[in-house]
C-alpha cells in the first residue's frame, strides 16, 4: 500500500485563510484519524485531497507509487448525498453505474452483475438495511441514510478512503458495530477519517491528528498501540484519551469557542 503525501497544502476563501502550508502523510494501509474544532477546516482538507472544487487552493497531493490519486479515492461526504430517484440498493451501487463503459452498454451487460448485487446486499445486511434495499432514501431515518452512504463508500473498493464523520448520526451500539465493519472491509486500505469523537479516533486510528488554530495547523500524531479496532476497555486507550482531551481543551483555552476564528 502506498503512502499519500500532502505537501504544502493551502486553502483560502477570499480573505479567510483556512490553512497554509499544511503537510500530512497518510500512511499506506493505515487509518489516520483527524479531530478538530467545528469549522477549522477538516472537510476542506478532505476535499482538497480528493481534488474537489473549493476556494483558492495550493499544494501537492502525491502518492508514494507515483501515480495520481484520482480514481483511487472513495469519498464519503459530511452530507449523505443519496440520490432521491434511486432506491437504497441503486444508490449504494452508484459507482458501478457511473463507471459503466460504452462497451458494457453496447454489449448489454447487466447494470449490476450478480456478484456486485450479492456484494451490495451483503453490505446492506451488515449495515442493517436489508429491508430498506428497495425503498427510496426519502423514507429513511437520519441514521439509516448515513448507513446507506457508508455502504456506498464501502462498495467502492478503492485503495484510499476519505470519510467525513461517517458515524456521526448513529447510536452508540450501531456505531461500534459499523466501526468494526469498516475496519474489516477497509483492511489494508489507506483511510482518512474525520470524527468528533476522541474515543472513536483512538479506537480506529493508527495515527490521530488534531487540526487547530487559524490558519489551521496539525499537531503531532498520537499513535495508539495495537491493532484496530481497539477495545475500549484498554487502559492505554484511556490514558491516551486523557492526553487527547488535554489537547482539545488546550485549544478551547486559547479561543473562547473551539475552532472559531
Amino acid at each position, binding site marked *: 500500500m502506498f503512502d499519500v503525501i500532502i505537501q504544502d497544502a493551502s486553502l483560502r476563501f477570499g480573505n479567510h485563510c483556512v490553512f497554509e502550508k499544511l503537510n500530512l502523510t497518510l500512511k499506506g494501509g493505515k487509518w489516520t484519524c483527524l479531530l478538530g474544532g467545528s469549522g477549522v477546516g477538516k472537510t476542506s482538507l478532505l476535499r482538497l485531497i480528493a481534488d474537489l*472544487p473549493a476556494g483558492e487552493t495550493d499544494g501537492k497531493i502525491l502518492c508514494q507509487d507515483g501515480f495520481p490519486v484520482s480514481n483511487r479515492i472513495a469519498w464519503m461526504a459530511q452530507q449523505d448525498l443519496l440520490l432521491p430517484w434511486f432506491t437504497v440498493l441503486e444508490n449504494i451501487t*452508484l*459507482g458501478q453505474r*457511473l*463507471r459503466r463503459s460504452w462497451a458494457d452498454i453496447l454489449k448489454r451487460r447487466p447494470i449490476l452483475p450478480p456478484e456486485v448485487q450479492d456484494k451490495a446486499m451483503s453490505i446492506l445486511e451488515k449495515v442493517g438495511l436489508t429491508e430498506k434495499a428497495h425503498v*427510496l432514501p426519502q423514507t429513511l431515518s437520519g441514521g439509516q441514510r448515513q448507513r446507506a452512504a457508508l455502504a456506498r463508500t464501502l462498495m467502492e473498493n478503492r485503495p484510499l478512503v476519505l470519510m467525513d464523520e461517517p458515524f456521526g448520526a448513529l447510536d452508540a451500539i450501531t456505531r461500534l458495530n459499523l466501526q468494526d465493519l469498516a475496519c474489516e472491509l477497509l483492511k489494508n486500505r489507506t483511510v482518512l477519517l474525520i470524527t468528533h469523537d476522541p474515543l472513536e479516533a483512538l479506537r480506529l486510528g493508527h495515527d490521530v491528528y488534531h487540526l487547530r488554530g487559524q490558519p489551521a495547523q496539525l499537531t503531532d500524531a498520537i499513535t495508539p498501540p495495537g491493532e484496530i479496532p481497539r477495545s475500549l476497555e484498554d487502559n492505554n486507550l484511556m490514558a491516551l484519551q486523557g492526553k487527547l482531551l488535554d489537547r482539545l481543551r488546550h485549544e478551547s483555552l486559547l479561543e473562547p469557542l473551539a475552532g472559531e476564528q
Partner: protein
Amino acid sequence: MKDSIKPFVVLLGLLVLWHTLVIAFDMPGYILPGPVDVAKSMAENASLLWEHTLVTLSEMLLGLLLGVLLGIVLALVLVYFAALRPWLLPPLLITQAIPVFALAPILMLWFGYGLTSKVVMTILVIFFPVVTCCYDGLRHTHQGWLDMAQTMGGNRFAILRNIRWPAALPALASGLRVAVVVAPIGAVVGEWVGSSAGLGYLMLQANARLWVDQMFAALTVLAFCSVSLYYTTDRLLRRFIPWQPETSQE
C-alpha cells in the same frame, strides 16, 4: 365530488359560462356564436372535422416529439459545451423572436407545403420552453452529487444519465407542460401559412367565409386536443418523477 366526474362538470361550467357570455354581452353570432350553434355545426361537420383533426394531430404529435427531442439535445449541448453557449444562444433566441409568418415563405421554399413545414413550425414554437427549462434544470445540479460522481470516476454520459438528467427532470417537466399546450398553435399557424388540410386550414376557410360556427367548432376540437394532451402529459410526468411529490399547502 369524485375526481373522475370533475372534468365533465368543469366542461359543463365552461359551456354555461360561454352561453351566458354570449347572452350577457349580446354577442352577435359573427363575433362569438353560442355553444348551441357550435354544437350543431360540430354535429353537421363531424366527419369533416374528424378528418382534419387527424391531420393536425399527426402534425402536432410529430412536431412535439421532434421538438422535445431537439430541445433536450440543445439543452445538453448548452450545458456540456459551455464554450459554445455564447454563440448558440443568440441564434436560438432569434428563432423565437421572429414571428413565424415572416419565416413562412422561407420555410415553404425549403420544406414545401406538406407535413414537413407544419412539423417544422410546431418544432419552432415548442422547442424553446423545453430548452430553457431543461437547460436551467441541467445546469443547477446539486454540486455535492457531481463531486461524488467525480471521485467515483464516472464517465460523462453515465453522470448525465444517472445524476444530471433525473435532477433536471422536474424542471424539464415544466417545459414539457408548456410545450404540450402550445404545440397545437404551432401546427395551426403552420397550416395558416400554407396547407390543404388540418384544423387550421378549416378555420381559415371558415373564417374567410364568415362561417363563424364552423370556425368555433374547429376551435373547440383544437382546445379539446390541447387539454387532453396536457392532462395525459401531466399524469405521465407525475408517474415518471415520483421522488418529487407535491408538498403541503399550508
